């Protein structure tokens, strides 16, 4: 049972990293970023490519992936999302288009496959990333056998969640983000440079998703379509947790991850996901604003 709970916790960690970015972008900017899952995918591919071209392992790929996906996120915000503020459902559709573009870019090896050039690590096929020896195997903690790699995921996530919390609560830019979450117009009126803060937040959220992708690459195959289920799961976490509430996202990621692993252990993976969807529908119906949300927004 503790085994299962632990697997659930590592699942929750990945969910949380994906959801944190979405929670901030959705909460602060009112943007539904369907291309967020593609950031996870890009992160995973960064791990693949840095192994092939830079001979870097998963741990070293984390900062690289953060930078790469943050830059991609920044470009998306500057070029497209920026023009759509205030049109919630349109952002959903436009970013879905972006998601397809990014997937096809990977599949067509950035278009190079037309000129007969093949980039190792890209293309439509499946990729694998080996886990470094230090993170393989298991260790014992208080009599329980624990998978080292899963423990690594959990530790990284806790560290990143702490960093995000510190950034939001203890820095001036974090205060501006919180102001925008509460009331963007008022924040702008008080002199917050909303456009700049939004761009940075978007980039940061994308970066977190990229890191989630790197960690997923360690225990799942990497392929161009891997992002779509992630963005769906990420949204479910955000909605269940309550829009704009980071604590809510943390708790609901924990809840959904645990439900998933427990049901998967009792029945199977397919039913586990089905149960998740059922639970989410129930929660939205009973508490449309999510389990934890601000009053007044």
């Amino acid at each position, binding site marked *: 049972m503790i085994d299962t709970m632990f697997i659930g916790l590592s699942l929750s960690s990945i969910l949380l990293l994906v959801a944190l970015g979405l929670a901030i972008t959705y909460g602060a900017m009112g943007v*539904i970023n369907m291309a967020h899952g593609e950031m996870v995918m890009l992160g995973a591919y960064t791990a693949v490519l840095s192994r092939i071209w830079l001979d870097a392992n998963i741990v070293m790929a984390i900062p690289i992936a953060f930078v790469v996906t943050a830059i991609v996120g920044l470009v998306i915000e500057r070029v*497209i999302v920026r*023009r*759509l503020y205030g*049109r*919630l*459902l*349109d952002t*959903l*559709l*436009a970013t*879905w*288009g*972006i*998601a*397809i*573009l990014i*997937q*096809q*870019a990977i*599949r*067509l090896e950035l278009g190079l496959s*037309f000129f007969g050039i093949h980039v190792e690590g890209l293309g*439509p096929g499946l990729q694998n990333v080996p886990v470094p020896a230090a993170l393989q195997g298991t260790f014992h903690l208080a009599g329980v056998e624990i998978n080292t790699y899963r423990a690594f995921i959990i530790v990284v996530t806790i560290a990143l969640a702490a960093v995000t919390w510190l950034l939001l609560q203890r820095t001036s830019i974090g205060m501006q983000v919180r102001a925008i979450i509460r009331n963007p117009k008022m924040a702008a009126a008080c002199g917050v440079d909303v456009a700049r803060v939004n761009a940075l937040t978007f980039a940061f959220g994308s970066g977190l998703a990229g890191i989630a992708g790197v960690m997923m690459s360690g225990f799942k195959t990497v392929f161009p379509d891997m992002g*779509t289920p992630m963005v*769906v799961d990420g*949204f*479910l976490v955000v*909605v269940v947790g309550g829009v704009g509430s980071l604590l809510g996202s943390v708790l609901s990621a924990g809840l959904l991850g645990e439900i998933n692993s427990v049901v998967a252990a009792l029945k*199977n993976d*397919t*039913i586990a*996901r*089905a149960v998740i*969807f*059922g639970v*989410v*529908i129930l929660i*939205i*119906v009973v508490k*449309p604003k999510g389990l934890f949300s601000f009053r007044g927004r």
Partner: protein
Amino acid sequence: MASRQRYDFLLYGIFVAAILLAPLMLEEFWLNRIAKYLVFGMLGVAVALSWGYAGILNLGQGLFFGAGAYMLAMSLKLASPTSLQQGSDKPVPDFMLWNAEPGALTQLCCINKGSFIWLPFQSQWFGVAMGIVLPVAIATITGMIVFRNRISGVFVSIITLALVLLVRLLVIDAQPLTNGFNRLTDLAWLTIGAFQFDPYSRATYYLVAIALSLVLVGARLLVSTRAGLILQATRDDETRARYLGLDVPSYQIFFFVVSAAICGFAGMLYVMVSEFASPTFMDLSFSITMVVWAAVGGRSSILGACVGAILINMIEAKVSETKALVEVWKAVVGLIFVLVVLYLPRGLGGFAHDLLDRWRARNAEAVPDEGLVAERRDTVAERG
């Protein structure tokens, strides 16, 4: 606005005439394909109704499409010759036998747990009826829960999205009953009296084309009724509509259900034309793709959404003939989508309306129209 409506109906007439006359100019091979695209056009109508007119972005239309498709497919599967070759005098789907426990009775009632729900589908008309009844029932229940609780906007989208993915997983998981990922294939043809609808025949094409014409005109008439106007008022300002004393949820539920029924109907037609039913009908990407078609064609124009769906699929078929371009085409669709949202938020239909209005305004200038001149005088007076 009366003349606007006249133009509208002129356009609808042209469209209906075009799809009914198309077989005269097309080879038989193309008929089957075009019939599929007409079915997708019907999905465009459903999306335009719920998204464009009700303001409900349903990301789970695939659920209703899939429900309609599976209901008819179950009946057609039992009617298929392959179901009669399983060593029983009553039909049993072939995949059930492949999955059956050794020694299980080869009867629909008890070959596996739950196979009895296939029993009524031995009648084709039960399947046809359920193809509408099931989507309508699901939509009614969902609509009641969602709209009576005043859930709106993106939350509706997320609920419908979760619902379609939930059902998709259940269908895949119930492999002994639904053949899961392996789809329902080897279906019989729909039979009315002694006539069989060969999917590659003109008859099937005409069935689909006439069905689409009826749905199209029906939907157009529906939105210009009082209920349709109230619905648009609700879309534009829900709170104000409520304060006017309107029972907003009833209208929303009604149009949600109509849209679901159209999707279910489309699902049945699709099964007739393509001869399979698959869980991919309930993929998230398919439901979003439907919304893409409607967005490109014009979400607030029923005909626009319908034409958008047909057009995109026709171009896709043309492009996909070159193998290297298949993947590129997907990227192009992504790009088109981004560009349409950015630069043509009302889609091609809205763009056409704007052109039409401009053209009429210019015509009106040439032949001065009383009302318009008076209007212009007012504007001048205001400016002055």
